[in-house]
């Protein structure tokens, strides 16, 4: 009954946070445990009482300030100087710029939206196929959940109660492997398709112009990796840096533009974070119905090999990710799967987190509800099916990387093992 309510509300399109809260309220009613209603609101509040969650609005604010202050544009120009002269140069530029962006923006969809505006028209102008340009740009967005700062990592860290800073460090090698795989795909495609080569644009200005903006990823990644600031503090420092550079170095960030930046950030961050509050009351259902235990028995009957279990989890998450937004899916599945992964199969929580986060981001690019796919297609004015077709090699290589990471936990955990 409760499961039926949950699925129905979810599929007909009730906001997911409300699906979680309404299901919990219905469940409380059905089980007659109505005393819980008086602590319902407190439980919602308690779901957010975590220092790690502070990083979400702050990282989002950094991204918005960078766009408004002209930092994003200059970073892209800088990347195009660095690799623009290679055959298929702009394709590499796109990926490198995406890696830089990934170190600033925590949200893949926001990143795809920004990069689609900047890179896709430019690639098309230089003679790349439009669908390929849109596909490459959105594939670049796949890097965002792995390179710090990542919303998914922050949320996974909070849900699984593990150190968010360490999770970021654990994501470095997988992020490099994934980026390497994408470079390989471009090189192979370029071999068959004769990508255009362009003269290098004016070097010195673009390089010098981008340097101040480059301090943002340095602050964020350096702060977290050197253990010199918590992810939350790094995020606040990045906000300050983005503001100062946009306002005083580039002079593009106007004070009248600020309220809008803050409101947009606030609303977006609130919509995401509110899901976590709703998931906390939904946790009652999982707890009293012993859902993790049931799933554990069921999966224990299927296999006792951690690698096979990880493959099953990947398969399931791919399906879930196709219909549910990555963050929402993460919030719903982690409380169920995490205890099984760690307690039954002895999987390292950081290993599990990195694989799950990469997997769920794939859903952004798959029909029927791939937000990233639609954003990239509509910005490029290309058909989603054409973009999806061009995306297949990138999605395929991401799947291969996922299998590799599932098989070799050391690739994830080696950097955080003391």
């Amino acid at each position, binding site marked *: 009954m409760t499961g039926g309510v949950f699925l129905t509300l979810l599929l007909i399109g009730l906001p997911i946070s409300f699906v979680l809260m309404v299901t919990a309220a219905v469940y409380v009613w059905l089980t007659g445990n109505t005393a819980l209603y008086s602590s319902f609101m407190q439980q919602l509040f308690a779901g957010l009482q975590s220092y790690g969650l502070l990083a979400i609005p*702050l990282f989002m604010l950094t991204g918005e300030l960078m766009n408004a202050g002209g930092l994003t544009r200059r970073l892209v120009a800088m990347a195009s100087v660095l690799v623009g002269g290679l055959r298929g140069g702009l394709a590499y530029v796109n990926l490198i710029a995406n890696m830089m962006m990934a170190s600033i923006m925590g949200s893949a969809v926001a990143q795809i939206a920004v990069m689609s505006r900047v890179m896709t028209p430019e690639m098309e102008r230089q003679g790349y196929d439009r669908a390929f340009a849109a596909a490459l740009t959105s594939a670049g967005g796949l890097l965002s959940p792995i390179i710090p700062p990542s919303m998914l990592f922050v949320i996974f860290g909070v849900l699984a109660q593990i150190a968010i800073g360490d999770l970021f460090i654990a994501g470095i090698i997988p992020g490099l492997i994934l980026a390497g795989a994408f470079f390989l795909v471009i090189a192979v495609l370029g071999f068959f398709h004769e990508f255009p080569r362009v003269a290098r644009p004016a070097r010195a200005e673009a390089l010098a112009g981008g340097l101040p903006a480059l301090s943002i990823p340095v602050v964020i990644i350096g702060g977290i990796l050197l253990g010199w600031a918590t992810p939350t503090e790094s995020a606040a420092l990045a906000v300050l840096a983005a503001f100062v550079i946009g306002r005083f170095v580039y002079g593009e960030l106007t004070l009248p533009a600020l309220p809008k930046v803050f*409101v947009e950030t606030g609303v977006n961050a*609130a*919509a995401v974070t509110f899901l976590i509050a709703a998931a906390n009351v939904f946790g009652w259902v999982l707890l009293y119905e012993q859902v993790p235990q049931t799933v554990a028995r069921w999966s224990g009957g299927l296999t006792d090999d951690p690698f096979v279990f990880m493959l099953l989890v990947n398969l399931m998450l791919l399906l879930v990710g196709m219909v549910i937004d990555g963050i929402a899916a993460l919030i719903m599945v982690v409380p169920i799967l995490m205890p099984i992964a760690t307690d039954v199969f002895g999987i390292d929580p950081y290993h599990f987190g990195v694989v799950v986060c990469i997997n769920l981001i794939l859903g952004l690019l798959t029909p029927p509800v791939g937000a990233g796919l639609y954003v990239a297609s509509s910005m490029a004015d290309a058909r*989603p099916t054409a973009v999806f077709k061009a995306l297949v090699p990138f999605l395929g290589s991401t799947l291969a990387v996922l299998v590799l990471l599932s098989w070799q936990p050391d690739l994830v955990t080696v950097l955080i093992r003391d």
Partner: protein
Amino acid sequence: MKVLTTASEAVAAVERWAVIALAVALVGLILLNVVTRSLAMAIYWVDEMAVYCMIWLVFIGASLALRRRRHVRVTAVIVALPRGAAQAVEAVLDAIVFAFCAFMIWMAWIWYDPVTLAGYGFDLDAFAGATFNFIYDEPTTTIGAPKYWVWLVMPLFALTTTLHAAANLADRLAGRAPIERAPAPPPEKETAKGAAKGAMK
């Protein structure tokens, strides 16, 4: 029902400024923390204060997001429905959200339980002893104010979301609300451009 829309927009305008103020406060508090900690003069209450700022930001922002229909949802089914059916489903969804928000007012009411509290002459100990509702006894860790002040954002959230949900429903029934459609651009136009593209290559 225009009055609902007007009231909801007025509340949204206040929420907009609250979101700005809380976001600025949040950044300020964390930066203060970084500075004082690096000077080895860390202020002990800043962390908890920042977390409460974030939570207020989230609930007020989530309320504003409800008015602006910005909450994440699964749209795969609704975009596949014919227009009329999609319109009907959207109306049902708006009604469910409204009903649940009103229910949250009731849940916040029985939690704060002001009538019973008044019955005990606002004697917090007598209230807790009689009802086993310890809302008024919970302290904050470092701020020094009782937790029920911080928790006040919850009844506020219940009230503002109920208003926004009512306005959303009224807008929907009056045909003023948007319907979610598939985001794909028209195919004919695209094929023409795609062909031109192919010829260029």
